[in-house]
């Protein structure tokens, strides 16, 4: 279970997150949607402290960390309970696909190298990249890199995987293969929080949708609820655009 309590964050005078409290249960697949620049990514990054909130608490797997006073040790432990998939893949450029996965297993989880490699191979197999294990990231396509990143996150066996717009940097053709990989993760019953603009995908894969605007969670519910009968005016307007079929007259 992940608990966020009274989380706030501002950059200068810009309040990005306004006092958000949120509980996410085990095995939930949460899609975080909303307009750009409303704090979705920041909220995600606050959960594993890549961005440190101004105030509030994050609890994960029995560990509670206060944004205002936290030790290096607590941060490390919190990060070891979570994994992240980034918008720009962020694979270690100097490591092969396989090493990208084993690195965390060896240095954070303390696995022996052969064990780590075995584990990494299994995960690569799952995302369909077993044959690219010894390629460096720059030799892989964007979609392949993102699939390695997903395998890297999965291998760590975390409490939660945080997805930060995992398909935004990909062309439409590659989006499909990455979404498929994420879907497979969802089926394994791992808790996931996904920031995404792929509304169809969110609706399809998520068990719960959060709609965020101006640093506040406006809507929180099952996909059908949020997409078909949103309660909030802002959500309604956002969904209208989504539900409308555009007709272009040329």
């Amino acid at each position, binding site marked *: 279970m992940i608990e966020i309590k009274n989380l706030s964050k501002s950059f200068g005078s810009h309040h990005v997150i306004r006092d958000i409290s949120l509980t996410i249960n085990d095995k939930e697949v949460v899609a975080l949607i909303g307009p750009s620049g409303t704090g979705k990514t920041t909220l995600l990054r606050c959960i594993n402290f890549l961005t440190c909130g101004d105030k509030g608490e994050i609890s994960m797997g029995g560990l509670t960390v206060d944004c205002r006073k936290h030790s290096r040790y607590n941060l*490390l432990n919190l990060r070891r309970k979570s994994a992240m998939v980034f918008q720009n893949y*962020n694979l270690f450029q*100097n*490591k092969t696909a396989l090493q990208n996965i084993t*690195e965390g297993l060896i240095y*954070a989880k303390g696995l022996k190298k052969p064990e780590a490699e075995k584990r990494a191979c299994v995960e690569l197999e799952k995302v369909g990249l077993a044959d690219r294990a010894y390629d460096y990231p720059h030799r892989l396509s964007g979609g392949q890199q993102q699939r390695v990143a997903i395998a890297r996150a999965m291998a760590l066996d975390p409490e939660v995987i945080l997805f930060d717009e995992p398909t935004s940097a990909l062309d439409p053709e590659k989006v499909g293969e990455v979404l498929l990989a994420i879907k497979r993760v969802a089926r394994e019953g791992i808790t996931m929080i996904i920031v995404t603009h792929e509304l169809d995908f969110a609706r399809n894969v998520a068990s719960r949708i959060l709609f965020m605007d101006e640093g506040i969670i406006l809507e929180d519910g099952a996909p059908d609820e949020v997409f078909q009968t949103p309660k909030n005016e802002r959500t309604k307007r956002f969904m209208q655009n989504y539900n409308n079929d555009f007709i272009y007259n040329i």
Partner: protein
Amino acid sequence: MRFDVSYFMQTIVRFLPYLLIVIKVLLYSVGCGLILGSLLAWAKLSKNRVLRGLAYAYTTLIRCTPAVILLLLLYYGIPLLLNLLLGVKITNASKELFLIISMALFCGASMSEALRAAYTAISSNQFEAAISVGMTDFQAFRRVLLPQVVFVVLPPMANIIVSTLKEGSLGFTIGFIDLIGRANVLNGNTLGNYLLEIYISAALFYWVLSGTIIAGIRSLERIFGKHKITY
């Protein structure tokens, strides 16, 4: 005027032992310079304003000082200063030590800039990715950032090492006898009759040494750049 090949060959043989001195000075200067440069780069990248300011001030000052002046100031100035302030008399200061110190001071300044630039060239995303898989800050630096920094820093590093080698030849200004010092003595003894033979053979040593350094760094680039090579 003619070029005496046999004298030229003799000089090369005569200079050989002095090559060791040049290499020794170079190794010490670059070694100390690398340590100093790393510390300075760390200071420049730190959040502490005072530390940053000091590091930049040092680099600017050193980069704007001609090497000869620094060497002369250190060699003649420091004993004078010590005598004045503490009453210590240094009569037999090691010329080699002072040459190494001033070369290291120079080398450190340039290295710190090269290291800083290389470090900033590596995206902060790499660090974030490393800590997000649960590495400590140090592990992230050691395993992910440093190997990438090394690859980026190697080409400027070759420049710095080669120019340190060549600036090391200024040792003769304080009377240090290395390759150039020996060449000067020889040239004086032969009244300039073998000037070409002497200085070309001295230059030959520097060419070979510089070439070796450059080739060495090129092969290091291949080792650290495995991830950048396209087939």
